[in-house]
């Protein structure tokens, strides 16, 4: 009996030794991060999919400036800058001692080359339109870059921090899609197509060195498989978990940390403002009042997500809650519809993209509109290919639901043509005035005014800001809570245990 006890004790002691030595070990310096979409190429200046920026932005590539966790512009490769009184000349003081990961120096000439390339006539930069206010770029000396605009653009600095304007190196740019070379703290290691991209630490990085040595981005498209990968330890973190209905199992599990934040993506039901009866603002306002935003959030995202009353994300500076302009009120909605000449309602078609959140929302909205006598027919449209053709390009639709992922994209309502076919001289003037502002306070004021016009006019039904459900193992720190820019900035991430 004593012998048995002794052997049990010694066994326990061994287990104890093993586990304590595990605790005393150095914290891990590698990270496996799960993403739902594999990027198509790794060059954010040549293709739009957000998955590209989710791997390389800030980790591998950097711009003149950057956008921080709060959605504010911060210095990056440009140490400081000054803007002329008229808002037409930007002078950047560039950092010296910056090298690309192929040991070529970063200078004002490389910066000029990068920006010139965006604006060239055969440019394939997906965001070229954002940089068209730029008239010319000059590099008077290696540390100074001067950008001259043809008209003031209050957002230009923000867009210079955007993934589409990261700095590239002329001799390696041809291969950036498959083997990217940037100035960031991590360099490209390998890409197993269909499986994962691995980055490793860049030893000659100009700034503070990252705490991780190796970061693997693993691509798992199926939401169930994402949950399984987290549970089985196949990945350490999924910053944008795609299965809201499976989130509670991780919230109650003390091995994981679950952080719910917001993204820059506004989910809206776009309306073809040209078509009857939607050309009457009262009809659009009535439908907005017949829409219970919280019910849609509950049904599509398990209650995660923030209701919005205009086209602006709560994660952006200048956001205003305008959900009370047309709050849920089916009785008033029916009355307003009668006033507009549709006492018995009408029938229209909802073109649903094949996206889970859009399909679920459409079904809920169908039930709510039936309550005010409006019949909504549902028609499925393959996303992105067929949807982009039918809805976005040919504007052959009545209404459609989609998330607008680009940050600070309220000005799309002032773009003509655009798939809403929305015309408002007030709004166009407000956006133009905002662009012309030269200080931050006026810029935000301009955006507030623009938000209010949209909230009143309802060119689209504003539903909710898409949640960012971040789940990672306990002990991992420095992950972002919100996503002002679609990305996975892991330059500050580290393990404490």
């Amino acid at each position, binding site marked *: 009996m004593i012998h048995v006890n002794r052997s049990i004790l010694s066994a326990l002691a061994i287990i104890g030794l093993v586990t304590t030595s595990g605790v005393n070990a150095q914290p891990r310096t590698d990270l496996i991060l799960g993403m739902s979409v594999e990027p198509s190429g790794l060059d954010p200046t040549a293709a739009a999919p957000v998955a590209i920026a989710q791997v390389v932005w800030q980790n591998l590539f950097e711009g003149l400036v950057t956008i921080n966790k709060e959605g504010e512009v911060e210095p990056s490769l440009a140490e400081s800058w000054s803007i002329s009184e008229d808002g037409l000349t930007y002078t950047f003081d560039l950092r010296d001692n910056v090298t690309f990961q192929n040991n070529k120096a970063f200078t004002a000439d490389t910066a000029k080359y990068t920006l010139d390339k965006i604006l060239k006539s055969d440019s394939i930069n997906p965001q070229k*339109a954002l940089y068209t206010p730029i008239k010319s770029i000059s590099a008077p000396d290696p540390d100074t870059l001067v950008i001259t605009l043809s008209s003031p653009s209050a957002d230009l600095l923000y867009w210079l921090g955007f993934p589409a304007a990261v700095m590239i190196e002329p001799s390696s740019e041809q291969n950036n899609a498959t083997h990217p070379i940037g100035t960031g703290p991590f360099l490209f290691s390998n890409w197993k197509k*269909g499986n994962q991209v691995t980055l490793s630490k860049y030893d000659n990085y100009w700034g503070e060195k990252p705490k991780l040595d190796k970061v693997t981005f693993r691509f798992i498209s199926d939401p169930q498989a994402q949950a399984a990968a987290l549970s089985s330890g196949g990945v350490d973190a999924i910053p944008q978990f795609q299965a809201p209905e499976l989130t509670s199992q991780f919230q109650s599990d003390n091995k994981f940390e679950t952080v719910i934040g917001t993204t820059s993506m506004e989910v809206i039901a776009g309306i073809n403002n040209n078509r009857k009866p939607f050309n009457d603002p009262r009809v659009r306002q009535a439908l907005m009042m017949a829409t219970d935003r919280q019910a849609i959030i509950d049904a599509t995202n398990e209650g995660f997500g923030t209701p919005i009353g205009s086209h602006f994300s709560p994660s952006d500076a200048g956001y205003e809650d305008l959900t009370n302009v047309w709050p849920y009120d089916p009785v008033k909605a029916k009355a307003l519809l009668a006033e507009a000449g549709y006492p018995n309602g009408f029938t229209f078609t909802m073109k649903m993209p094949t996206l889970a959140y859009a399909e679920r929302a459409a079904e809920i909205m169908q039930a709510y509109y039936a309550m005010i006598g409006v019949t909504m027919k549902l028609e499925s449209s393959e996303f992105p290919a067929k949807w982009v053709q039918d809805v976005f*390009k040919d504007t052959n639709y009545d209404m459609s639901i989609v998330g607008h992922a680009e940050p600070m994209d309220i000005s799309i309502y002032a773009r003509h043509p655009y798939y809403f076919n929305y015309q408002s001289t007030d709004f166009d003037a407000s956006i133009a005035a905002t662009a012309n502002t030269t200080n931050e306070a006026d810029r935000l004021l301009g955006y507030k005014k623009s938000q209010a016009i949209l909230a009143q006019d309802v060119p689209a039904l504003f539903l909710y800001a898409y949640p960012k459900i971040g789940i990672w193992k306990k002990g991992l720190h420095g992950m972002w809570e919100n996503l002002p820019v679609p990305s996975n900035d892991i330059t500050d991430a580290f393990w404490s245990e």
Partner: protein
Amino acid sequence: MHCIAKPIAKSLSGLIITLLFVSFIIFLVMEAVPGDPAEIILGMSAQPDTLAALRSQLGLDRPFIERYLHWLTGLLSGDLGNSYTYSTSVAQLIVERLHVTLPLTGLAVMLSVLISLPLGVTASAKPNGIVDSFASAFSQIGIALPNFWIGLLLIIGIALTTGWFPAGGFPGWDNGFWPSLKALMLPSIALAIPQAAVLTRVTRAAVIEITNEDFVRTARAKGATPNYVLWHHVLPNALIPVVTMLGMQISVLIAGAILVENVFNLPGMGTLAYQALAQRDFIVIQNVVLFFAVVVIFINFLVDALYNILDPRLRIRR
């Protein structure tokens, strides 16, 4: 020699004509499918001039016939073209993905034969017996269940509870043989079960049918043991419908692999085809579909050749 070469040459020319026809149909379908790759690559903010620049870079602005002939001449010289989205050679993409799909489907075929042959033969020995009832229940359920759903059940029931196999993903053969084989185990079981269900049914029916033939009765009457009759008279004849079914199921297996690879997140041909279709990466889809067509035609070829081995009468006739 001469009499062997002639049928081979004939079937080879038939093969080429079939493939030409298939390639044209694929190209035509891709042309008719709505969706512009340039728009998908550049997103919703792209300006018309940017889209035009990318289209001309990808060669999408050239006429239909020119693009088709360009693809064909490329194929002849072994150049399948470059993926629009990955910017890498399609041939390389396919070869990389075959490292997963080939072992996966091979394992699935092996498992389905290992399950169905013994089960079907044992079931046929005693119709309506215990084994037969089990076999019939198994094949009914197996045929009814979609393989991706079986995959999900295996993930929840085995991978997550026991941890014996990973729930998804693929470590790569260069990271060790056993971890990679383990990653393929559950998906190949998911693929094998519906196949085994069909094959069990075919095996059982074939064995019972052959057992009732006159030559089997004759063999028994001559005093051969039941085992001898089974191995030397019944099975060789029963294998012909089984092999036929196996060949016909290859296309079902490929279709199943597309779904199962997605459920288990395996970087195989199936996920490649699925992604390419969603991205309208036409050049990848064309080549992948053509590759699948070649595989199906080749397997049918192989099945024909197997008949010659299994059925001596065919050999004499030629």
